[in-house]
């Protein structure tokens, strides 16, 4: 892993740490309430705060995960660094697009 990727991975980790704590609390809350799709969407749709929170979370997680995947492909599989990088970028882009789509699905009115 080069310095640039190292900094991106650590920076996204630092950004996500508080987001993960809040997300775990949300998971516990939603589970306890046994919330239906209607109840979930009633809380998220039209909410700028949830859009910003989960938008940042989804993008950070996609970057962080793709760098981790790249390291694993590079170190554990017989792939050269370039191929590992291409696979990781494809994974990161696909995950980020799905993440943005998911956030849009639950926050757009």
């Amino acid at each position, binding site marked *: 892993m080069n310095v640039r990727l190292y900094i991106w991975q*650590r920076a996204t*980790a*630092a950004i996500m*740490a508080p987001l*993960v*704590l809040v997300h*775990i609390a949300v*998971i*516990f809350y939603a*589970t*306890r309430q046994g919330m*239906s*799709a*209607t109840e*979930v*969407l009633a809380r998220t749709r039209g909410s700028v705060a949830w859009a910003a929170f989960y938008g940042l979370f*989804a993008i950070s*997680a*996609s970057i962080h*995960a*793709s760098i*981790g*995947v790249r390291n*694993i492909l590079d170190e554990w599989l017989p792939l050269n660094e370039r191929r590992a990088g291409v696979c990781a970028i494809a*994974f990161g882009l*696909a*995950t980020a697009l*799905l*993440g943005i*789509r*998911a*956030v*849009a*699905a*639950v926050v757009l009115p």
Partner: protein
Amino acid sequence: MNARYLKHRGDALWLAALVHRLSGLALAIFLPLHFLALGLAIQGEARLQSFLRWTDQPLVKFAEVALVFLFTVHLLGGLRILVIENLDWRDGQKRLATLAAAVSAIVAFAFLVRVF
């Protein structure tokens, strides 16, 4: 492989690094699936509701408990790494790694109690 080259693999901090990597890999595999599931809301509330009812199965709930454990242990393991790399060295890293695993198990157990 010569046994002396494998000796470190029994060390608590080597195990902590392995757990961090494997939990990260599992979460990376889960992440796009999670996004796909949430994206069902595009097709309407009924479609998302149908998926949520599917997740009521006991096997899915156990998988969610495992995910909560992996999520928490990856968070705490990552925080330990950030602290090691950015602050002064502190002794007792093996104890901290064990504590992270224990806290994650407690959080996962609390979630297990909630979902059943």
